[in-house]
């Protein structure tokens, strides 16, 4: 195998998984293309051709929507006015905006998976983090902006972290399955947010929707590129820094070492003198805190105000990212950029061809399936079926924690 081939080898399954998922997605576009398929009886050639065209147009629009229009890039190069530059750069910066919450949540899921815990609750931790940050920001209204940003972010991190701590603590102390508790806490988080957004303190005046007062009137994370209609802000840089920090934490610190050891083999970690219960609690808390940080960045930088639908399922997409990236922080950044591009490009696809963005949710689900079943993807593409054992990308000991450690001996 060539050197390039060898370097690409670990990425083979993820890449094939994505391609396969899009092919399946296009089948759904095809069979729901009633306008064209209705001619199937009269002119089958045109019908099928038309339907295939819809697929090509849809995916084409998605690429343009995600990366930008070459014509607009040319125009901006020829005449670099702020307006033209903004028009050229907006799609790609929007892709980065869309990737930002995904990086945070993807890292959050990866940390928990690394520790052997299934944090399905990143969604709730993200939402509650955003809620905490929004609440703090509204409470601090009138204070200097940097103070609001810092304190609100801290608040968001704490609320998210708390929402991760609860299932971690319950798992370590009582053995309660974190899968169940985090699923349930997602719903509780949604109810907390709804409850909060109905209070006069947070609720936007003259609105009966569950949305908060407009935060962007008085607090906004600074933009990265100061051009009209740009939304890309420093939260993206924070996300990249977090990827570095998480990578450093997992692979270069003693706590990260403990966390990984406990994740792969709880008993061996205990035999080596580590406090495995603590590792679980730490991982779940950090996981929640990262998600909360992501929520804070979203509500303070990207969207104008807190609302009950601030997350279109970031916490679940994050599970796909973590699987796709094998829980590697830098892989998660790449995967988040890809998924961000899909989500952002999906918008233009919706506008241009009327195909709902929700198709991409379905495609994501397919990607997870294919990545989680590498044997399936190899069977479909008939690529190297025999393979050395690889690192498990999901927790080694899911849902069945060891009996609580003898506490007396740890005193």
């Amino acid at each position, binding site marked *: 195998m060539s050197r390039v081939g060898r370097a690409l080898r670990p990425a083979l399954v993820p890449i094939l998984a994505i391609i396969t998922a899009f092919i399946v997605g296009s089948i*759904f576009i095809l069979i*729901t293309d*009633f306008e064209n398929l209705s001619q199937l009886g009269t002119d089958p050639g045109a019908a099928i051709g038309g339907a295939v065209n819809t697929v090509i147009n849809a995916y084409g629009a998605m690429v343009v929507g995600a990366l930008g229009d070459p014509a607009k890039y040319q125009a901006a190069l020829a005449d670099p006015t702020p307006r033209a530059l903004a028009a050229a750069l907006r799609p790609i910066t929007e892709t980065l905006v869309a990737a930002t919450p995904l990086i945070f949540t993807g890292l959050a899921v990866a940390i928990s998976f690394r520790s052997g815990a*299934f944090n*399905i609750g990143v969604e709730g931790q993200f939402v509650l983090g955003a809620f905490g940050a929004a609440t703090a920001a509204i409470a601090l209204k009138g204070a200097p902006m940097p103070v609001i940003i810092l304190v609100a972010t801290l608040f968001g991190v704490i609320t998210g972290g708390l929402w991760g701590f609860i299932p971690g603590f*319950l798992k370590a102390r*009582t*053995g*309660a*399955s974190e*899968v*169940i*508790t985090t*699923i*349930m*806490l997602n*719903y*509780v988080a949604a*109810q*907390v947010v*709804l*409850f909060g957004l*109905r209070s006069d303190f947070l609720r936007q005046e003259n609105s009966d929707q569950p949305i908060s007062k407009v935060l962007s009137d008085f607090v906004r994370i600074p933009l990265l590129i100061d051009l009209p209609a740009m939304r890309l802000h420093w939260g993206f840089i924070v996300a990249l820094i977090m990827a570095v920090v998480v990578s450093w934490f997992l692979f270069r610190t003693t706590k990260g070492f403990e966390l990984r050891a406990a994740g792969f083999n709880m008993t061996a970690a205990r035999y080596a003198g580590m406090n495995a219960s603590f590792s679980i609690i730490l991982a779940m808390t950090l996981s929640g805190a990262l998600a909360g940080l992501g929520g804070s960045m979203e509500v303070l930088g990207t969207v104008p105000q807190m609302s009950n639908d601030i997350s279109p*399922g970031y916490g*679940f*997409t994050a*599970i*796909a990212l973590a*699987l796709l990236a094998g829980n590697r922080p830098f892989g998660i950044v790449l995967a988040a950029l890809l998924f961000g591009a899909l989500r952002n490009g999906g918008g233009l696809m919706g506008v241009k061809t*009327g*195909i*709902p963005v*929700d*198709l*991409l*949710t*379905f*495609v*994501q*689900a*397919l990607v*997870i*399936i294919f990545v*989680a*079943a590498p*044997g*399936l993807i190899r069977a479909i593409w008939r690529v190297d079926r025999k393979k050395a054992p690889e690192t498990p990308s*999901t927790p080694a000991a*899911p*849902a*069945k924690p060891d009996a609580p450690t003898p506490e007396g001996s740890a005193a």
Partner: protein
Amino acid sequence: MTAADATFTEHAIHEDSSAARAARRSARIRGVIFAVLGLFALQLAISTMDTPAKFSFWIDKQGGTAFPIQTTVGILWILTGVVTGATGIWQLYRGASFKWRRMLAVIIPLWVVATLAALLEGKTANLTGVLQGTLALATPITLGAFAGILSERSGLLNIAIEGKFLIGACVAAIAASVVRIMLGPNADPFMLSVAAFIGVVAAAISGILVALLLAWLGIRWKVDQIIAGVVIGIGALGITNFLFLRVLSKNTQLNTPPTIEAVKLPILGDIPVIGPILFNQTPYVYFTLIVMVFFTFMLFRTRWGLRLRASGEKPSAAGTVGIDVIRIRYRAMILAGILAGIAGSSLSLASAGSFQMNMSAGRGFIALAAVIFGAWNPVYAFGAALVFGFSDSAQALLSILGVDVPPQLLNSVPYLVTIIVVAGVVGRVRGPAAAGQPYDQG
């Protein structure tokens, strides 16, 4: 006591398993909680002895003749307090062997009624609608819980119930609508109910397909069952939203199914008070009750149930005596898929009258909550679903009567209860030991 007695006692304690000790500890905690709650209720009675508590029921039909019951809030609290307190004392006395779960069937309704009366502050509440609604709302949750119990008892985790609900709801709406279109505009009511029934069957088939996908991923490709369940949840949401926006919203005739209405049972439906509540329901409710009885019998009394439970508890024990564990699991998943699909169809055909985006709204996870709260037992799970259904149903009543209880609080009840139960504070429930673990058959 002689020295020999003392050693014997000590020996007995030594031979005690840690599980039994934990069970006794949580029994004590439970007893104390019940006793304290009982005292609390009695204390509440003191200040409310004079507040009237007025309830009424419709004797014959909704909006017909009212059957009033009047007492005072204080008396309700005394009743609640005495029963709860007595249960607590009984629990402390009997220890771990006490079947406390059964007492909940009395205690929870008492608390609910007393709290309701206290909140109403003398206003009259007609409960027929609430109770009828409780049963109706509990139905899809119960069926979903049965689906969960079936698959988990066979050894497969099932957190994809939500996804099956959504797909079932969507498929039922489309299939029933298509049949209705084929029947033309002048179809008689009987043919329309046939159309609705075809919708239900289609939903059941969709449930089977999703269940088979889940089982196939878990069994054949060893995809982690939690991942597979989450994925099917996400995928179902994505694909049904996609279909709704791309197809149904533009072609509304495809989303106008004939609805499934309440059917008043002859004779039973005429029983005063009870008739309107229990026997004037949609066929889903009757179906669910029949399934509950039959399923409980099958699970605990038959060879099928014995083998199913063995597959979920220790599959290798079943495999080594020649039982085909894989086949048992596939079959259980298919049955679970049918039940979850039918439950999904009830959302679009009975409740809403059409398919809406994300219309299951977490009910699949409430069903999972009912599985856990019901300790993987169909009857208990039905009880749990009733509690959850009531917290849903009472909201409407309270808001009509202008009582200010945040609906979010009531909505959170199932989730919070589940967390408390899995944390094992009041008594550990133990799920099937092998649920979620892949099984390799030779």
